[in-house]
């Protein structure tokens, strides 16, 4: 652990989901066939013009609202000019002057404590093409060219790799909850730039900021931050802090280190200017109100509801909100009348374990909430034991049949109170000696009576009810 205070800022790029690209009508989806999602603009053929996708604007504004940002009165775009073989126009259309959101904040939970994260801005831009490198050549695939990207920039407000990653994890979930992005790091849908500086604990000025670009997994973000803190701290310890330069580095996954790319002095002048082909577009209050209605309940709010209204433990609630699909499954269960605690229990103990083992999404899980209900209702009524319920759950899943097929009258529990009382009365009448012994202190005889009832009912008596009635009669 460093004796210095580390200050970290994040830039999170996230590919947005939509039918078409942000400025062209080419399909926005991953495609194994190169150059199969391309409209003329995506390869910058002369004379082509950008046209703004409404859905992308809506989703950007929705995220801007979720992050409690302020929105510009007029939406417009800027050109970021630079030459690179993956950038066919020679500029990227982005938002520098008027991002969809500025000055936001959002509260996240980190290890049970709350943290307010300050958002500098969130803006909409287009992705570049992708390069495939071979021994002597590179090949360019323009499928990704023009895919909508949301870039979220935080203030330097994180003080550890844990905090930074907790935020990224939370944001990933928000994107999924809001249907803005699949936010799948494995598919390269999230890329991060991270800046790190260190300072003495009580210093008032930030240290020299070092930026690391294009980190493609949260684990790497974590490692890169910690490596950078260590590197900078060691230099500072050795009295060589002046060697920490304002520069751009990249994270090398193999060595787990960061490697210098270029100094701030060599920073490219992007010559930003307003994109003249996209007129300013008025963002009305009414429109923002409409969009607000589309904001779903977010994970933190859901968690609070689960704990307060459904009496779930914080631990359980945390597991359920981890993925939007889990939370949706759970809420569907509650909506159709399943006892929330039982639903949570099934979800956490059995369903998540099962889908993780099978490597499937909960959306493809055979036992939809309505099927689960068939089991849980019977169990809740006491018609089947928890052991039986589990058997039925597994059988239904194995044989892909509705659970109700396995709930027969035969294995139904006896939960009829009158019937159980009759049986118990008979047994008690026949065991006067044991009752006397019980009252004299041999309390373990209670189990004997239970055993007698189970024997009489061939094990079908509802054990909880039997215990209840016996207690009533004996005590």
């Amino acid at each position, binding site marked *: 652990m460093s004796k210095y205070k580390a200050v970290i800022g994040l830039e999170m790029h996230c590919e947005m989901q939509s039918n078409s690209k942000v400025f062209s009508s*080419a399909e926005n989806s991953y495609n194994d066939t190169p150059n199969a999602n391309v409209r003329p603009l995506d390869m910058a053929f002369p004379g082509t013009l950008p046209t703004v996708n409404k859905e992308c604007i809506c989703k950007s504004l929705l995220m801007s609202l979720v992050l409690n940002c302020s929105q510009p009165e007029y939406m417009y775009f800027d050109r970021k000019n630079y030459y690179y073989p993956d950038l066919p126009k020679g500029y990227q259309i982005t938002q520098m002057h008027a991002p969809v959101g500025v000055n936001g904040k959002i509260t996240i939970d980190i290890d049970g404590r709350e943290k307010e994260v300050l958002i500098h801005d969130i803006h909409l831009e287009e992705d570049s093409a992708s390069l495939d490198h071979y021994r002597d050549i590179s090949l360019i695939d323009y499928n990704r060219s023009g895919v909508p990207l949301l870039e979220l920039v935080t203030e330097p407000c994180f003080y550890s790799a844990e905090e930074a990653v907790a935020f990224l994890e939370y944001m990933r979930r928000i994107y999924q909850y809001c249907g803005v992005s699949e936010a799948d790091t494995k598919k390269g849908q999230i890329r991060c730039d991270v800046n790190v500086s260190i300072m003495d604990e009580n210093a008032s000025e930030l240290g020299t900021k070092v930026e690391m670009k294009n980190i493609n997994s949260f684990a790497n973000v974590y490692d890169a931050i910690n490596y950078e803190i260590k590197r900078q701290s060691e230099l500072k310890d050795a009295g060589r802090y002046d060697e920490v330069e304002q520069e751009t580095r990249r994270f090398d996954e193999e060595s787990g280190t960061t490697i210098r790319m270029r100094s701030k002095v060599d920073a490219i002048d992007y010559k930003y200017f307003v994109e003249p082909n996209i007129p300013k577009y008025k963002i009305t209050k009414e429109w923002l109100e409409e969009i607000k209605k589309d904001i779903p309940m977010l994970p933190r709010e859901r968690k609070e509801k689960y704990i307060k209204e459904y009496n779930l433990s914080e631990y359980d609630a945390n597991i359920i909100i981890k993925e939007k699909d889990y939370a949706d499954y759970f809420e569907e269960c509650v909506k159709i009348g399943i006892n929330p605690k039982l639903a949570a229990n099934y979800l956490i103990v059995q369903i998540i374990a099962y889908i993780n083992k099978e490597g499937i999404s909960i959306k493809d899980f055979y036992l939809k909430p309505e099927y689960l209900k068939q089991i849980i209702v019977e169990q809740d009524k006491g018609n089947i034991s928890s052991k039986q319920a589990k058997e039925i759950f597994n059988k239904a899943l194995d044989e892909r049949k509705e659970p109700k097929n396995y709930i027969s009258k035969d294995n139904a529990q006896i939960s009829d109170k009158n019937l159980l009382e009759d049986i118990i009365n008979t047994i008690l009448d026949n065991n006067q000696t044991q009752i006397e012994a019980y009252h004299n202190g041999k309390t373990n005889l209670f189990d004997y009576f239970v055993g007698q009832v189970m024997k009489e009912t061939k094990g079908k008596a509802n054990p909880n009810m039997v215990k209840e009635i016996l207690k009533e009669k004996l005590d």
Partner: protein
Amino acid sequence: MKNFTKELVDDLALKLLIGLTDEENKMVLDEFDVIDQNMELITKIPNISKVEPMTHALDDFTYVLRDDKKEESIEIKELLQNCDKYEGREIEVPKVVG
């Protein structure tokens, strides 16, 4: 006024991936003084810092954002018909490093 040098002109050109011959460089240099003088005409207009820059041809554009509908991709044959070097369905360039 800024002192324009051959180096500055070459640097400006190179940032746009353009090489200049000595002759072209000299032409720019000769012209630059005039240009800079001309530019001064803009800065002579008083009190303009509060004027909102006019970034588009019209101020009263109203337009409809594009519906999120996808259109067919352009045929690969057409995409590559003007390309001097490609491999399979992709455009080929010398290996890009860094």
